[in-house]
């Protein structure tokens, strides 16, 4: 064989080796994930919730906002989880509430993740003044703890479910921005990125094909745990009357309604809270599972 052919053969073998290594690493991560009992349980529960939410009109026995004369009925054969003060079936309201909460979780995290990741990548990739400016902004956002930021944004935009989603989403921007920036800085100094630059790889292509896929993993973990958090904060906002508005069936509002009738009808506040807890636990389990699968050094 000529020299050129031998070099090409070696190149192809290296290429295949690299590809195989990456594939095995991913396969190993997936296998670790599937072996994680908590993560799998959480995943199944979450999946079930999504399915139920999507099939709400089919699964729910009653219309969630239909008023009836059967007010404050305890759980019975007719109404599995009882009725509230307007005679609305609690079980149906919980099923429809799943739609609202899951949407809140995913949309809010999506907003935070997209904006935060973009900020993080730009800050990490370009550095210098842009980096400083963006990180100062992130610090300013982090000066408002937890729900306070969501409250501030809701104060500006007014009550409502969409506004609440935006408010909660903005709260996630700092975490994603910082995480992605750290990841970007790590990746930026690796040899292959330098090599790509040397070959003349443009900025956009560099970010898209080399930097971005490597920051994806921690972002995924943060996003999953973020969904759990978003559902909690969203329900809290609705509980305060600043999120979803009546007569929408939403778990937070149901808890707020249930508060008034605690003595006479404990079921109004008991079951929506349980629903929130189960959903949040499932999301947290999946998040923990992902984190342990992708970075087993963190498990103890």
């Amino acid at each position, binding site marked *: 064989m000529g020299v050129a052919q031998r070099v090409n053969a070696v190149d192809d073998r290296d290429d295949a080796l690299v590809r195989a290594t990456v594939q095995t690493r991913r396969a190993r991560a997936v296998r670790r994930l599937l072996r994680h009992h908590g993560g799998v349980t959480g995943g199944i529960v979450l999946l079930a919730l999504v399915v139920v939410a999507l099939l709400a009109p089919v699964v729910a026995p009653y219309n969630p906002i239909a008023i009836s004369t059967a007010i404050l009925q305890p759980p019975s054969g007719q109404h599995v989880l009882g009725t509230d003060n307007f005679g609305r079936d609690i079980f149906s309201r919980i099923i429809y509430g799943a739609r609202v909460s899951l949407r809140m979780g995913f949309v809010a995290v999506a907003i935070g993740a997209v904006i935060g990741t973009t900020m993080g990548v730009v800050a990490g990739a370009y550095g210098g003044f842009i980096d400083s400016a963006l990180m*100062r902004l992130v*610090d*300013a956002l982090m000066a408002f*703890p937890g*729900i306070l930021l969501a409250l501030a944004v809701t104060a500006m935009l007014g009550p409502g479910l969409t506004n609440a989603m935006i408010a909660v989403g903005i709260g996630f921007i700092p975490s994603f921005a910082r995480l992605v920036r750290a990841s970007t800085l790590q990746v930026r100094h690796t040899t292959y990125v330098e090599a790509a630059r040397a070959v003349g790889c443009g900025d956009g292509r560099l970010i898209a094909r080399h930097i971005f896929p490597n920051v994806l993993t921690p972002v995924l973990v943060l996003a999953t745990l973020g969904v759990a958090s978003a559902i909690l904060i969203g*329900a809290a906002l609705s509980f305060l009357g600043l999120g979803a508005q009546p007569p929408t069936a939403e778990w937070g509002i149901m808890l707020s309604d249930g508060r008034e009738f605690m003595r006479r009808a*404990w079921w109004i506040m008991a079951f929506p809270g349980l629903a929130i*807890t189960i959903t949040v*636990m499932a999301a947290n389990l999946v998040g923990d599972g992902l984190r342990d699968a992708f970075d087993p050094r963190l498990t103890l």
Partner: protein
Amino acid sequence: MAQYVARRLVAMVPVLLLVSILVFLMIYLTPGDPVQIMLGQSGASAAQVAQVRHELGLDRPLPVQYLKFLENLLSGQERSIATQQPVVSEFLGLFPSTLQLAMASLVIAVALGIALGVLAATHPRTWVDYLSMAVSFMGVSVPNFWLALLLIYLFAVQLNWLPATGGGSWRQLVLPAVVLAVQQVALIARLVRASMLEALQEDYIKTARAKGLPERAVRLRHAFRNALLPIVTLLGLNFGYLLSGAVIVEIVFARPGIGRLIVDAIQAKDFPLVQGAILMTAVVYLVVNLLTDLSYAVIDPRIRY
């Protein structure tokens, strides 16, 4: 050391400025005319709106307004629309109540959290460990307003041991403090466990055991003390959870405090009060974070950069 403190203080200034600007802009990022929102739907005429706008100085250029905003706030002239009291005094009047709640819950949380974490770390992979971690996991997943309602139902409605609402007496402090503590216990326990497990792997532990030191002394005198370091940082981060959780807890238990102040002001569209209270809360939070960073540098001299 003094240099480090000075440097951190200086670094805080741009963030403070940015925060105050963001809060100031809140009223302008609101869709709709701020003056009309403040006057409500009372059918004010165009002349009245213009007059109020002039009175409030809203027809001046933005940077001038920003400076006026700061000046008014600090001098105590910025008044709440509802009560006509200076915003600063409203805030300072209610701050002690929130602080009381925060401290009480912190004491409970630290005591329980450390106990649980140490227990889990010293009996790894036994039912004690799994149970504590399960409890910790649930603590983070349960919505605190639901837990508050459940506890009210159990202790106030059914058993009638503790009052459900209000503030002032220590009995009214118990339930809110417990609810607020739950989430913190979860985080503290997890961190103490991880921290102690790591400390127990160190060589000096082997030496202590080889010396013949009783196991209890090994755990308390050596492992635990060294495990304490990261917990200090956590307490600073914790303050954020405290403030954020206090908002909900105060509302559910109808306790006077900053949280209720802010939410009520938002619902009443009392913008000066909302802006002032949020700004001051953010400042408090930033100061606490700074103090935590500084204390960490005091404990571990390697951290001063």
